[in-house]
């Protein structure tokens, strides 16, 4: 895992309760245990808090995996 994916996995683990070791770039909402629609909202809020960024409605709807989130966060200038 890259550093960023690892950081995001840490946040996702906080939100959905899955052990961080079970998470990777392919982890996906609706598939990964605990990553349901409610957890997804918590995850979005946590990512916005953590990186001080804003994610638009279309961007939220387009996120299909932890890797997608990493790409989005990177595109917003987070290194």
């Amino acid at each position, binding site marked *: 895992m890259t550093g960023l994916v690892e950081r995001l996995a840490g946040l996702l683990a906080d939100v959905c309760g899955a052990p961080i070791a079970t998470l990777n770039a392919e982890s996906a909402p609706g598939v990964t245990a605990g990553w349901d629609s*409610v957890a997804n*909202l*918590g995850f979005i*809020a*946590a990512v*916005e*808090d953590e990186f001080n960024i804003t994610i*638009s*409605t279309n961007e939220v709807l387009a996120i299909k995996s932890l890797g997608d989130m990493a790409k989005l966060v990177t595109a917003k200038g987070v290194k």
Partner: protein
Amino acid sequence: MTEVVTVETSAAVFQRRWREIEANPTGLRPIAIAMVASYTIEPLLPYLGCFLAQRGLHAKYIVAPFGQVYQSLLDASSPTRTADVTLVLSRIEDLCARPLAELAKLDPDGVQAARVEAHSEMSWLTAALTAYEAATTGTLLVGTLPRPRFSPLGVLDPSHPASYSQLAHELNLALFATTRKSRRIRLADVDGAISYLGHERAWDPRMALISGNPLSSAGMRHVADRLARTIAALVLPAAKVIVLDLDNTLWGGIVGEDGPTGIAIGATGVGAAFVAFQDALLAYRAQGVLLAIASKNNEADAFEIFDNHSGMRLKREHIAAHRISWAQKSESLREIAAELSLGLDSFIFVDDSPTECAEVMRVLPEVTVLQLPQDPANYVAALAALPQLDRMSLTDEDRMRAAAYNAEKARTAAREAAEHDPALLKEHLKSLELICAVRRVGDGDVARTAQLTQKTNQFNLTTIRRTEADIESMRRDPAWRLYALDVRDRFGEYGTTGLAFAHRVAEDTWHLDTVLLSCRVLGRGVESAFLRAVTTDLVAAGAKKLTSQMIPTKKNAPVRDFLPRHGFVETGEAWLKEPLPGAPFEDEHITLQGP
């Protein structure tokens, strides 16, 4: 110790903490909370759960399907009906979607019809709330309606007949009117929490689109914090005493150095901030919180200010107890607690000095410590932020408490003269002209009754805590008899200061489940008179035997000999008294009335 969560804590911490609480709620008191909302409410639950856990409560949620407010309230088989607290959260945008759309068209007849329809929607809601209240025993907590975020009229909105904001005020007024007529429907100020944060930050239109929950993460934290404070105030007792430092707490400067003319307290400059703080303290005193002083000062210097400084709002008679000396503050607090016969866990200590605050925190961790902020302008806000001062019911006893303590001081002075002479003590008790009035717990007593079971620690036979809802359902059950005791003497009223709950366990046997007296009336033989009245009433109801039990706690030493002293005999688990009424009670000096 885990870090405290606040409205500033990040979303991930709330999520993680809530999972930890759910996995291991040990030590938290469970409270069943039903959620009935016009929008998706699940995202709010972790925030609310974390704030409640911080007050020692484990939220066990029952979530009604979203958007079905009326149906959930009116459905007799709804699982929400068993909850301790039912939260009803809705928005005008959901409740009155059609009238809002009609208002926006601005057709004069249509505007009038839309306003009528909106009010009619609110009547449906209040009728459903009232029906739910009648069918349940818990508390209904209804969120005030946030004003709609946008009005199509923009800045013209408040000046136009089709105003959204005016409609919001009117609908909230209708909610207020409903709660005024009811004891178990209360309001939680959701609109206030959102206004406090600001509409711009409280709503998140993306989340409304994605999930059906219109609040932002910050909005949820603020709303959850307000709801948690409201719910906690329903079930937890409020603080009883605020102990205050003097220099730079009640006035600016140091009286011992600056002198009475050098301190800042009065109409102008920073002195006005201290006046505002004293006014806030007097407002809490009016709610039943006692004020006390713990200060390192010369007593004469300090009281010179209370008695003669024209800027002071607090006067000597407002102070229930004081320790003005060079002793450690923790020691002064202990002495004040002993003098007032109140537990330190119901104390708030207020001081500007970090050193003094740290000393009290270290020695007396059960005391709530408020270290005042740097700027006296912020003192009032710091005090108001303390959840320990929250209360959701205000009884006549609460309002009269501070005056009652003054009467108690006069009594103490009279008793001290008689202290060590049994004959004189008897004479003294007689001279009090005590009157005990015993009655069944009535409609207007429920709040005070629940409060007494929650707050009484010393003379409390079983220390069983009960909510208003518990008291309601016991009152409706013919197997229970709930007695309340009012005491007065020639110095004044003590108010409702005793309770006894009995329930029939067999044809001729009643069990005393609760006997408690406020410590204000101890040492006067009142418990004997109370038991005599209760026994007489139960005998009339067919009782030939009375059973009870004594559950020892750290604090209830004063009640330990109550049962043996009144003819109860220990029989294994329980205590038994027969025949009734048994040996004479030592209460000749008391006039008994009722039940």
